[in-house]
């Protein structure tokens, strides 16, 4: 597990440990944990980490915010922290101040588009929007006749069809029908729907990597406790080799996600090299969620398949996060096209670019 070496992550981990303990949350059938957790995160300024002081946020660096998302993944945090961070980031790109409270980003899939009409109203349908039902505001990336725009929208102005993702978190369909935004600005050069999806994809990659770190940890611990055939199951070579593979998947996810985060945090623009990093992170972390999560369940046996056990809080969320901001197959097609366009002899220079 990564040791926190910055104040943002330290603060967050303390709050998660106090108010988002996976076992206590899992025992709580009334969701009474949600409000105090959100309040503590808000008081610490964490949901608006990526919003500068002057726009209502706490002005943390991109790198610190990414590390915070990794920590949130390790606790399988089920409040719209990542979503509010991404929404605040998007608004800040267009110098729009962030309001208080929960937010999410619209759209959350590369396939959906919101359009800006000549009257300045927004229309369109976005599926799979995480935590739309909990959000007070939407940060919207829309397309007008003069290019991309960023808008802040009162969530009550949209129609929301409620849904749940594989991990039992809200994933809703948002329909905007000639909605007047609270604020709207042109997107800065270089910010478009693709870069927003890549940013969201890297956020999800870090969360998946965090969930895998925890799955590895609880699986190793369980294998050292559970006795079968008169010995700890950790002593069986078949179990050891499965856990070694889980460690590999966890390591690959963490390496891909932190490398992409580092690339974005230090990039001047979303060039081909950053595109490779971000798309690869989403692809590889999604693959690791499937392979690694599968092993964690196999090690736990039937107990891990129960609602009482915490494993599903990680395994199902990691699987659900694959779907947001473009699935791994979406990004694989896009990355494949990029590689093909550049040509065979430009593949290695791209891979070896940093």
């Amino acid at each position: 597990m990564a040791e926190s070496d910055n104040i943002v992550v330290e603060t967050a981990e303390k709050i998660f440990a106090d108010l988002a303990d996976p076992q206590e949350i899992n025992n709580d059938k009334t969701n009474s944990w949600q409000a105090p957790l959100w309040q503590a995160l808000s008081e610490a300024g964490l949901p608006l980490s990526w919003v500068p002081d002057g726009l209502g946020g706490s002005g943390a660096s991109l790198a610190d915010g990414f590390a915070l998302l990794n920590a949130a993944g390790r606790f399988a945090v089920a409040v719209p922290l990542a979503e509010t961070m991404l929404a605040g980031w998007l608004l800040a790109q267009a110098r729009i101040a962030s309001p208080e409270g929960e937010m999410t980003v619209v759209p959350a899939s590369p396939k959906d588009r919101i359009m800006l009409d000549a009257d300045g109203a927004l229309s369109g349908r976005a599926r799979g929007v995480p935590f739309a039902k909990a959000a007070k505001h939407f940060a919207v990336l829309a397309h007008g006749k003069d290019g991309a725009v960023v808008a802040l929208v009162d969530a009550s102005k949209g129609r929301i069809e409620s849904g749940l993702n594989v991990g039992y978190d809200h994933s809703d369909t948002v329909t905007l029908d000639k909605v007047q935004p609270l604020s709207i600005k042109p997107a800065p050069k270089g910010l478009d729907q693709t870069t927003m999806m890549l940013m969201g994809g890297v956020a999800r990659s870090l969360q998946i990597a965090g969930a895998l770190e925890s799955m590895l940890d609880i699986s190793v611990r369980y294998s050292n406790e559970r006795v079968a055939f008169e010995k700890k199951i950790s002593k069986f070579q078949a179990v050891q080799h499965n856990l070694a593979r889980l460690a590999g998947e966890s390591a690959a996810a963490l390496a891909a996600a932190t490398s992409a985060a580092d690339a974005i945090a230090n990039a001047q623009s979303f060039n081909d090299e950053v595109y490779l990093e971000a798309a690869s992170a989403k692809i590889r972390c999604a693959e690791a969620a499937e392979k690694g999560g599968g092993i964690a369940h196999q090690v736990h046996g039937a107990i891990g398949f129960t609602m009482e056990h915490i494993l599903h809080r990680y395994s199902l969320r990691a699987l659900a996060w694959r779907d947001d901001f473009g699935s791994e197959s979406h990004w694989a097609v896009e990355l494949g096209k990029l590689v093909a366009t550049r040509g065979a002899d430009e593949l290695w220079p791209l891979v070896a670019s940093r």
Partner: protein
Amino acid sequence: MTAALRFDPIRLPEKCEQLRKEVRAFLAEEIAAGTFDPNKPNREDTDAPEFSRRVGAKGWLGMTWPKKYGGQERSFLERYVVTEEMRVANAPTRRFFVADRQSGPVLLKYAPEHIKMEILPRICRGEICFAIGMSEPNSGSDLFAAKTRATKTDGGYLINGTKIWTSSAHIADYMIAIFRTSPPTKENRRHGLTQFLVKMKQPGIKVNPIGQITGQYEFNEVVFTDFFVPDDHVLGEVDGAWKQATSELAYERSGPERFLETYYVLTELVRAVGPSPDTRSAEGIGRLVAQLHTMRRMSVSVAGMLEAGKEPVVEASIVKDIGTVWEQQLPHRVRDLAAFVEETATNRETLERQLDFAIKTAPKLTIQGGTTEVLRGIIARGLGLR
């Protein structure tokens, strides 16, 4: 938390990128001069002594070693760049690769000073080739079951026994081998083996080539009959090779050669599908590139840890496990996608020829230098399971 696996995002420093340009220019010249064909990994004769000397003259062998032994005192990250560029170009590195990666560092650590002064500069000049004598007919992964005996005699040892699967022994000038100097003890079955420097091409050593399923003859059986090794060729502690054998593994296991061995088929597939691939090809290529990129970032990260003086044994084993399984599957995934390549693709024949060779190469990749099973055992130990 039990598992403290870290792969920090290392960025290669600017001097590495300058070096990369130099290596690419050098390799382009060698290709133009006809030294090797980058599209033909399946060449029959993989030995290229003149190329080896020219690489040495560039200062790219033993480049991390002290200057007094012919090295350049450059970083592991710089060495990493040279290694990966050579590998991707399919350059004929056989003659110097083992000496540069493994044997030199062992000598640096355990050889007496006069041996270091004699041999290390020659490695740096690309003059000499090394082999590694570990496996025997009845001991492979179980290194410590080795039986080839080193019996004490006046001024040295007499060696009797057989090493097997010894890559490059037929061209090697030296071998670093482990021989049995004492029986194992009850308390420690790893006790009793000693590491030796062996000068090849002498009476008492017979090298018998072994054909591989690729059609190549790269590994050998090496038979020792009353072969004399002088005392000053003992490397490290007598009977204590087991203490020395593990610390080098991080160097050996995590390099770019552990996932790039069949890389050429991916380049050739991209060439064959052209600039407008169908959805299936695009997705297949995208996934493979994402997996490749991730492994390289992990591997670079381990190189960074080595540079920082750490011994990331578990992380290195993870890189080799994931990397070798990937490079083993790669030709088969490329074959799946190649089935849809247009008949008119101009490089179709090259791709098919490369696939034929890569598919035959694939089985060895998860065996050589530590099997998948051994690696997973090491990872499991790192997780606290053993």
